[in-house]
């Protein structure tokens, strides 16, 4: 039992950290550019597809990862220059629609290029083993531990970037008041492009890392987009700290909720306990968000006063 709980907790941590990679980009883009980007999940999907494509040409997983991240970041920068710069000045409704259009375009073009069948990314040989935890009671895959380590490293990196560097100071200034920041001499346009590209890079990192665990398919963007949005809404849109806390909360509740519900249903001998538990756990996250917004309409850590 203890082994199962530990395993599921680690899975929850891993899912939460991957959610954080998406939510961090989403919350940065929203906080600093005042832009709702529904297509953020599509960048994650594109990152995963690019990783799958590169893995045909390169054996080294690290090279594949770096290439996918660089390509997606470049795509993000181009998108920002061509489209998002204009969207920034439009209404929220227009932003929702335009980025919804981008989702349709991204999904359809990925289907056209890679086909409707899910694509697999091979797990790197050296990472496919597992380690013993709790004195041989639990065999946990090394690869998942690696994902957790990368997630934590990125979280620390982002913390240092946003709070301890000059660039981070600009980002925070831009987030709290873009006009004032521009007047004080911060070159706001390149900053926006950088932030957007950074968000895209984080998406690609998550997509490429999860590629070997999941099948890479066109629906994957949307299936993580909604939890990622729930994360930033729970945490408070624009707040990095909120995104981190929210992501871990959502990851844990989703994974442990599934465990608890499934075992409860099994205990009461309800048919189809596994699927029922999974969907009810997803509902739990939505309910959490609704509950938090009911008491704190601006999320746990409101970014702007």
């Amino acid at each position, binding site marked *: 039992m203890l082994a199962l709980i530990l395993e599921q907790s680690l899975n929850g941590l891993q899912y939460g950290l991957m959610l954080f990679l998406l939510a961090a980009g989403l919350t940065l883009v929203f906080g600093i550019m005042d832009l709702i980007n529904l297509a953020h999940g599509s960048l994650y999907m594109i990152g995963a597809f690019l990783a799958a494509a590169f893995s045909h040409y390169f054996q080294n997983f690290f090279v594949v990862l770096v290439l996918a991240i660089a390509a997606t970041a470049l795509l993000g920068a181009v998108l920002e220059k061509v489209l998002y710069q204009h969207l920034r000045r439009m209404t929220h*409704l227009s932003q929702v629609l335009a980025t919804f259009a981008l989702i349709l375009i991204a999904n359809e073009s990925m289907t056209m290029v890679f086909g409707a069948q899910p694509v697999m990314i091979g797990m790197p040989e050296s990472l496919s083993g597992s380690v013993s935890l709790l004195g041989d009671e639990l065999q946990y895959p090394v690869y998942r531990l690696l994902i957790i380590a990368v997630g934590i490293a990125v979280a620390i990196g982002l913390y240092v970037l946003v709070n301890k560097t000059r660039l981070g100071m600009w980002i925070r200034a831009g987030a709290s008041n873009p006009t004032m920041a521009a007047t004080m001499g911060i070159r706001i346009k390149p900053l926006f492009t950088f932030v957007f590209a950074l968000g895209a890079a984080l998406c690609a990192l998550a997509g490429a890392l999860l590629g070997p665990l999941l099948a890479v398919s066109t629906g994957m963007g949307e299936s993580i987009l909604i939890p990622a949005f729930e994360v930033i809404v729970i945490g408070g849109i624009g707040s990095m700290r909120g995104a981190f806390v929210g992501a871990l909360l959502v990851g844990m509740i989703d994974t442990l909720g599934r465990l608890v519900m499934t075992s409860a249903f099994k205990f009461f001998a309800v048919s189809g306990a596994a699927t029922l538990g999974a969907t009810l756990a997803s509902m739990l996250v939505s309910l959490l968000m*609704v509950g938090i917004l009911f008491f704190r*309409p601006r999320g746990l850590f409101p970014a702007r006063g």
Partner: protein
Amino acid sequence: MAPRLIPAHRPETPLTAGLPGPWTAIAIAIVLAAYPLLMRELGEDFYITLGSRVLILALAASALNLALGYGGMISLGHAAFLGAGAYTVAALAGQGINSAWIAVPAAVAIAGLAAFLVGAVSLRTKGVYFIMITLAFAQLFYYLAVSLPVFGGDDGLQLTERSNVPGIKLENDLAFYYFVLFTAGLAFVLLYRLVSSRFGRALLAIRENERRVAAVGYPVFRLKLMAFTLSGGLAGLAGALLANLSMGVTPHTLAWQQSGLLMVMVVIGGSGYFWGGITGAAIFLLLEEAVSTHTEHWNLVLGVLLLIIVMVAPNGVMSLRERVISQFRRKSTQ
């Protein structure tokens, strides 16, 4: 007749509710009534069903338009209410209750109740939070439909026959079209009365400046909640008709993409214009039909078109008329 609204002077937010004159409405009603007879003459029965579909989604889009266009509430969860209506009809039919007199009002009531509950919580939030919380609620309904065995899981529920209306056999596509036209027509009259009433004008005022309306003494929250509930109820009516049209309902009706598509229809037509939802749904469905015969990549075409619309005409097709008129005026004064 209710007074026509005064044209706005701020081009970005048309305060002209785009209300139709009586003759336009009568002309459109005649065209819609004659349409299936013409199609029957031409032997194109398929287009009668397509006509029913357009009318039903026009109703759904207009319902969303009440909240989105008139009330300024950007709801990304209206598919939930559409689905609530559809599931009510299908679930009642599963219990052997087939009478339209029970099923349709029940669908409206359930969807309205759902909208009331969702609105009561969501309307406390603003801006992006509102968009996201409506989306989250819609996901709740979606998961509920998928996971509860009563609702048939992924397969949804099937109808063995359409709802019973005494004296009419709805299994006949022509009769069903007229049933839809009549029901949707009543709903459009109701919508017209709503948006041209004091309530409608207060709603517009809230959209333009909520704080000011609150300061003048209107109960802003209550008005918005009322509009949201009505909007949900009408979407439920559309859902009830949709379940009858497609002889069943699947969780796909509740998916968040469906909410997005409803929003797309409203914006293509013109949010905040009376004909906006109707025009948008018609353009959307006819275009989908035309494009799908040539290519299977309809979503790609739609995505590109949508981007162009958002960039070029964010106020939709109905705003083009005003734009053209103002162009002419400018030329004639020069």
